[in-house]
C-alpha cells in the first residue's frame, strides 16, 4: 500500500477495478510517449493551429498561405479565440488548361479555447509569409507568480 501511495497510484480494490487499472496504465503510457512531442487535437477544422505558451503570453499560429490579412477575421474573448475568413483563389485566364489543381479555396471558421485568461485589449495579430501569428498576453490572474519561501 505504501508503494502505491508514493507512486501516486489510485487504490484498486476488487477484480473489476483491475480492468480500470489496466486502462489507466495504458493511458499513462501513451501520454508519456506523446507528451510535448506531437499532440494531435484532431479538431480537423481549418486552419490547423499550433499553440505555444511563454511566461507572458499564449501564441497561436496557423498556416494560411495565400490568404490576405483583410480576409481574416480574428476575435478574442478572455478565454477563446475565433479565426474565420475566406481563402480566395483568383480565377486565371479562361484559356488556361489545368494539369493539376490541388489548392483549395473556401470559407473557414474556427474557435480555439485558451488554457488561461488573456488580456483581450493587448492581443496582436500578424500575417507574414502565409503564417498567421496571434500573440495573446496573459491576464494578470493567469501569470505565474513567484512566491518566496519564508
Amino acid at each position, binding site marked *: 500500500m505504501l508503494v502505491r501511495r508514493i507512486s501516486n497510484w489510485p487504490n484498486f480494490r476488487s477484480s473489476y477495478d483491475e480492468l480500470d487499472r489496466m486502462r489507466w496504465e495504458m493511458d499513462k503510457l501513451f501520454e508519456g510517449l506523446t507528451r*510535448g512531442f*506531437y*499532440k*494531435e*487535437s484532431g*479538431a*480537423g*477544422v*481549418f*486552419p*490547423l*493551429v*499550433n*499553440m*505555444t*505558451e*511563454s*511566461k507572458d503570453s*499564449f*501564441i497561436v499560429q*496557423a*498556416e*494560411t*498561405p*495565400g*490568404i*490576405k490579412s483583410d480576409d481574416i477575421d480574428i476575435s478574442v474573448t478572455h478565454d477563446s479565440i475565433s479565426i474565420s475568413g*475566406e*481563402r480566395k*483563389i483568383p480565377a*486565371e*485566364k479562361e*484559356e*488556361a*488548361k*489545368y*494539369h*493539376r*489543381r*490541388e*489548392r*483549395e*479555396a*473556401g*470559407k*473557414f*471558421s474556427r474557435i480555439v479555447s485558451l*488554457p488561461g485568461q488573456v488580456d483581450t485589449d493587448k492581443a496582436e495579430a500578424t*500575417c507574414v*509569409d*502565409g*503564417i498567421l501569428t496571434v500573440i495573446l498576453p496573459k491576464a494578470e490572474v493567469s501569470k505565474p507568480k513567484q512566491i518566496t519561501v519564508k
Partner: protein
Amino acid sequence: MTEAEIRALQAKEKAQAPVPAEGTRPGLVFSPAVDIFETEKELTLLADMPGVKADDLTIDLRDNVLTLDGEVKLPEVSDEEIVFQEYRTGKYSRQFNLTEMIDQSKIDAELKDGVLRLTLPKAEAAKPRKIKVKAS
C-alpha cells in the same frame, strides 16, 4: 458565386514528400500543394509554401526536371512551451518532369503570402502552330 455556394475549407494535414535521398540534417520534408495550368504561351505553377522566405527558396530547372526546395527557418532560441500542435513544420520539396520546352531565360518567380507563382514561358519551338487544312 453566392454566399451559400462557397464551400467550407477542409483542414488537411500536409503530405510528406517522398524523398529520393535523406538530408544530412534531420527534419521533415513536405510536398506542397500545387496548381499547374498552361496557356498557349506559358506554363504556370502555383505552390503553397507557408513560412518560406524568398531567400530560402530555390528553383532549379535542368534536363526538363523542375525542382522546388523551400526551407522554413525556425527561431533558434525560444522559451516557449508547446501547448498543442496540429501541424508540423519542415522543408518543402517537389519535383516535376516537364514535357514542354521552356525558355529558361524568361522564367519568372514571385513569392507572396507563402504562395509561389512560377511562370515558365514556352520556347518558340514548343508553341502550337495552327495549321490550315486546305480543301482539295
